[in-house]
């Protein structure tokens, strides 16, 4: 096993490859006789940031909740490794829409962190080694200075970054972000997207991100999905934003997103995929590093 290089952050489950992909086949959700979602067929590769947009009640949150298994669904969620072998259930990191947490709870950021990543009982305190790892992860989302603060003292944006760090430890195969920036101020949004975008590249994971701020998310997304009960339009943000379906739902055109440096890196997401054959491209270069699984150290 290779040791992680100095500037790589701790741990991924599988070496970055660009060939892993997540497939949703015939995904659908019905609750109490009414169909919320149907015929969702999706195929995303690791290293891709996929933005899910759609009107209120389109089933965006339901889709993510079905993917994590919180609500029953039809169809299958597959995670397939680059060599074609199936991982079975992917490891999913999830940042919920709005975490309804009792603000009077005496819970520090590290408590929150270890409740997810460690079995060592929180009321015994924290283990030094684990604390160091946690601080490393928090640093990755630029939140290490909040470690000992109570979660009630954090702003919305700060809290969401902590949630992101938690969803990333251990590094998942698939990261689901449900409107992570709702209620976050402008500066906070920029920081959050920048971090999410960087993490996607560093760890080569697939990110699904629900957003209402279409113009903003388009700057960072590789792919955009317009959802309303089913997938109406799927493709590059420019394509989806120019589509008649989007115009019909939102009632106006979005100007094509401005080119940013993020855009140039987009092609990294399109790699050889043994399971679909439609996509072509190169494998990610730095696939040899980052194989250490720090999740086992707790």
């Amino acid at each position: 096993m290779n040791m992680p290089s100095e500037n790589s952050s701790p741990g991924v489950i599988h070496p970055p490859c660009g060939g892993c992909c997540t497939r949703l086949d015939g995904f659908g959700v019905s609750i109490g006789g009414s169909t919320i979602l149907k015929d969702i067929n999706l195929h995303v590769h690791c290293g891709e940031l996929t933005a899910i947009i759609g009107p209120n009640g389109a089933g965006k949150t339901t889709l993510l909740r079905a993917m994590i298994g919180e609500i029953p669904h039809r169809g299958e969620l597959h995670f397939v490794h680059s060599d074609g072998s199936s991982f079975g259930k992917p490891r999913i990191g999830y940042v919920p829409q709005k975490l309804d947490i009792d603000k009077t709870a005496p819970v520090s950021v590290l408590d929150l962190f270890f409740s997810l990543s460690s079995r060592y009982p929180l009321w015994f305190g924290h283990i030094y080694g684990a604390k160091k790892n946690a601080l490393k992860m928090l640093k990755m989302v630029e939140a290490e200075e909040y470690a000992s603060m109570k979660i009630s003292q954090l702003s919305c944006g700060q809290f969401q970054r902590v949630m992101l760090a938690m969803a990333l430890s251990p590094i998942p195969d698939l990261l689901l972000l449900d409107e992570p920036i709702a209620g976050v101020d402008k500066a906070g949004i920029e920081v959050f997207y920048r971090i999410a975008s960087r993490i996607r590249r560093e760890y080569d994971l697939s990110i699904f991100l629900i957003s209402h701020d279409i113009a903003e998310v388009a700057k960072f997304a590789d792919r955009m999905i317009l959802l309303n009960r089913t997938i109406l339009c799927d493709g590059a943000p420019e394509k989806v934003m120019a589509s008649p379906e989007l115009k019909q739902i939102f009632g106006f055109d979005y100007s094509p997103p401005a080119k940013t440096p993020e855009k140039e890196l987009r092609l990294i997401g399109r790699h050889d995929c043994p399971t679909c054959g439609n996509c072509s491209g190169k494998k990610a270069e730095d696939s040899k590093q980052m194989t250490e699984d720090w999740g086992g150290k707790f």
Partner: protein
Amino acid sequence: MDSIFNLSFEWIQYDFMRNALTAIILVSPLFALLGCMVINNQMTFFSEALGHAALTGIAIGAVAGLADPTWPMIIFATFLTGIITLLRKYSAASTDTIVGLVMAFSVALGIVILSKYGGINKYSKFLVGDILTITTGETIRLAITLGVVLLLWILYFNKLFLVSLNRSLAQSRGINVWLVEFIFSLTVALVVTVSIQWIGLLVINSMLILPAAAARNIARNISSYTLIAVGISLVSGISGLISSYYCGTATGATIVLISMGFFILSLIWRIRKGR
């Protein structure tokens, strides 16, 4: 000095006081640990309902002709916990409505049975509780209960905590939320049932909640929250027992009043700190 010493430790020479003290030392941390999690889960009403459900267990035990109502109480509390869990999962009503409903049912059932088959008056000891009548065998039972809870708290605390914090988040980490909630509810049911005749139905919930509520005002993380709650619970438990001996008052209620004092102090501390 000698006489003060004799006076303040006079009580220790009695067996019943020694047993009671042992029981308090076992029950206090047990209640504090559970209480912290009950508040995290916003389940104070649920534990209250369980206390009342014990009455029905006692009634059923009386009808069945059992001298010790512990088993009927445990079985009935388990049954109610199951019902509440199922209703929460499958009904549209909010949790407090469901708990209120189930509590009303169980109390009514208990009163009906007791009024039919044998005076309610006989069971007043369960309302007020009398820790001074506890026997060595019964303290061993409490010790075992504490042991079980400690084991649960060492092995599964983080899961319990995560579920109490946010269910979606817990679910996304592969935790069986319903199972964890059921096991926790069952633990509360067990502890409330096992200790109800020593503490008393009317005050048992306050004993569960108050130390944790006070600790919440002061603590900055889970570790300090738990330890402060255990500390407050132990101090008010022991001092409550001793003062109830000298004042001739009911022990459970005396302990609750002292914990209430701690709660008020913690509240003042919190306000002065401006949090």
